[in-house]
């Protein structure tokens, strides 16, 4: 069994010192080790953004795709080989602006992959424009007088889209974050984890301190039951989604792969590419 160090490669991340994404990377490496993965059985697919670089910083198979499309790529990888553990990841712009449609559909499709968003409420790589997670009033390069749109709540949207695993965490809470990623990987179905991961360069509002002051841990809320969807939704609304922990999990719903008619029980990429002549003849006969 691999240790978390075996998920390290020799690349020095090009993130700014202090960027929240460092901890997300560390948590992913730890979680991968903790759930007993070997590096070659993990595929990390990422989008474009500062955050998107993460697939190059973890020793595993890594696919750094195009902006907003980490989820369809990741789903394709999983369908090709259900034996792999597949993690999709990227930024809030990647997942909630250009990739919003895919995010909602990946959630409802419920293929057994884990999606980790590094949510810094800003576009980092393009140097500080507003993101769908930027709060109304937030001043950025593209909203010099403050954003006039409302921020989306990924957690509420995910619940509404029929998610079976929805969690939120904060990048400095390495232990919590690691545990949540483990739970996400172990979840049978689509697991969606939004991580507050501060951008120290362009976001001077939603800082580490800001989060420390504003986040509520779900395990401090008495009687919180993560299998109760209505409670989950109410709690999100009440706390303006500023909670961390597993917000909702439905362990009963089968994952997509389990439902696909005729789907190979082993990795599809190992199946035979040829047909019996008889099988071919049967197919052809339908056209006679």
């Amino acid at each position, binding site marked *: 069994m691999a240790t978390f160090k075996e998920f390290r490669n020799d690349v020095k991340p090009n993130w700014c010192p202090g960027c929240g994404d460092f901890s997300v990377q560390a948590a992913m490496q730890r979680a991968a080790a903790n759930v007993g993965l070997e590096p070659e059985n993990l595929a990390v697919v990422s989008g474009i953004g500062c955050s998107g670089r993460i697939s*190059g910083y973890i020793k595993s198979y*890594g696919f750094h*795709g195009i902006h907003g499309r980490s989820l369809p790529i990741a789903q*394709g990888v999983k369908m090709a080989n259900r034996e792999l553990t597949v993690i999709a990841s990227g930024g809030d712009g990647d997942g909630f602006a250009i990739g919003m449609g895919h995010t909602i559909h990946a959630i409802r499709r419920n293929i057994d992959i884990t999606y980790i968003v590094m949510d810094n409420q800003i576009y980092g790589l393009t140097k500080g424009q507003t993101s769908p997670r930027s709060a109304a009033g937030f001043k950025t390069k593209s909203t010099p007088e403050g954003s006039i749109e409302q921020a989306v709540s990924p957690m509420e949207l995910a619940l509404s889209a029929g998610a079976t695993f929805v969690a939120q965490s904060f990048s400095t809470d390495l232990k919590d974050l690691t545990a949540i990623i483990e739970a996400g990987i172990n979840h049978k179905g689509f697991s969606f984890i939004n991580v507050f991961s501060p951008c120290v360069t362009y976001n001077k509002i939603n800082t580490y301190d800001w989060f420390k002051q504003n986040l509520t841990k779900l395990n401090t809320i008495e009687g919180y039951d993560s299998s109760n969807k209505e409670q989950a939704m109410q709690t999100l609304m009440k706390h303006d989604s500023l909670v961390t922990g597993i917000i909702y999990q439905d362990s009963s719903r089968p994952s997509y792969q389990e439902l696909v008619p005729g789907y190979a029980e082993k990795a599809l990429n190992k199946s035979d590419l040829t047909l019996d002549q008889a099988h071919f003849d049967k197919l052809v006969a339908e056209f*006679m």
Partner: protein
Amino acid sequence: MINQLSWKVGGQQGEGIESTGEIFCIALNRLGYYLYGYRHFSSRIKGGHTNNKIRVSTTETRAISDDLDILVAFDQETIDVNYKELHEGGIIIADAKFKPVCPEDTKAELYIVPFTEIAAELGTSLMKNMVAIGATCAVLGMEISVFNDVVDEIFGRKGEEIVKKNMDAITAGYKAMEVLLGEKLGAMELEKADGQKRLFMIGNDAIALGAVAGGCRFMAAYPITPASEIMEYLIKKLPQLGGTVIQTEDEIAAATMAIGANYGGVRAITASAGPGLSLKMEAIGLAGITETPIVIVDTQRGGPSTGLPTKQEQSDLMAMIYGTHGEIPKIVMAPSTVEEAFYDTAEAFNLAEEYQCPVIVLSDLQLSLGKQTVQPLDYSKVEIRRGKLVDFDIEEPENKSYFKRYEVTEDGVSPRVVPGMKNGIHHVTGVEHDETGRPSETALNRKVQMDKRMRKLNNLTNTFKTPVYKNTPHEEADLLILGFNSTRGTIDEAIGRLESDGMKVNHAQIRLIHPFPADEVLSLVQAAKKVVVIENNATGQLANIIKMNVGHVNKIKSILKYDGNPFLPHEIHTQCKEMFEYGNV
């Protein structure tokens, strides 16, 4: 006795026009006739004129006929829209229900048969199309028993009673027409066919079957006319092989999911038409730079934008060659028959893996949807070649470094491992990268990797099986006709007539569009006095590609058609002749 026949059935969409043609065709195909169908339909579900024109012949024909022998009309519009195609001696068989009238200048004779009434009497007016088939049989002097099996297969599930009723309807149609025809019974008797078992299918069937035969086990796609049949076929068949199809939220998801699956080691396909392909452009570039195999089908239809979604066009050529930003190695194939559509699609998966790049299989609406007789498909001709896919154990790399997925090699192709393989770990990115896939911006690396990728296809025009389909009997030709995709049969037929007129005509259909087989085409162009490129588009896209690659800018002329309909043989024939007569080739 005649050796070919052109038959058309028309009415309102949603009325069963398609199935009328279908039953008629299946039966005739089994007798060994060659059929070639063309569907006229609109982008709506019910209502609006639709028709199905079918060429029946004792020899292979792959062209819509210029005119019409028999028109079966279920409404007045069918007569009004189509009567001009009928020649002297032609026959219109119309349902009495709509009180058919023929325009004054109708050359054909009108026979009024109470299709609906007869059908209703026998149980349900839905069987009116059976009555029409029976009536057709009377004109052809064909025994109605030829329909026994087909009717049995189609209605068998619903019970013997229904089978019988449908056969009764055919009989009744025959009888009614027999009376009307009098001595003209069997006026259009067809020569006996060879009785060979051939297939009857559309190009999309062949593409989908080719995918199955080519080892494709996953598809991600979004519905669109005229590509949906490919998806619908694979939805039915892939589960038998452990595979599946995901109908995605859009075409961008379809293309990127297929990229993910191919990266994952499964042969995966996506298919769409123009609008979907425009949306896939960014994904195609990603496949190009990450050297991920992917097979993408584009069934061209009338453009631009939503354009003419149910009409014939060949106007995506340039967009398929050039339509992603930046420069990637890419293969664009254009089968020109249904058989080629089968073999080419299967082969596309080999090329995609061998060259580790996107392969676009270009089709057009007439090839994709024109139902026709097809020669037996030979599975033994289908190979599976996976190129440099690593299927052996990999040694542990030194210093635990990454696998050189993008190793610089002489032929530009690098060893490819898929996730899950021990010691094969590497990085994949749409950013320029070094041999292990790590992003790199240095000028040196950039040039090396770009050159590596682009040289992969340097030799393809030489190794590709048949980059150009040639029917070039003349060493020195008066005329060389060039085309691609479904125009082949029509050009063939036109050439027959031009040769009868005394012209020496060579014919080449470009099957490998990109990289372009310039040498081969150049020598054909040089061996002809005049050159004309036939295309279903407005700007002469193939002609432009040829000019760019082989020069002879002034020698190369175009015959274009972009009104939504396929070429008819006489159009090519006359336009070529005119060019000669007025010396303006």
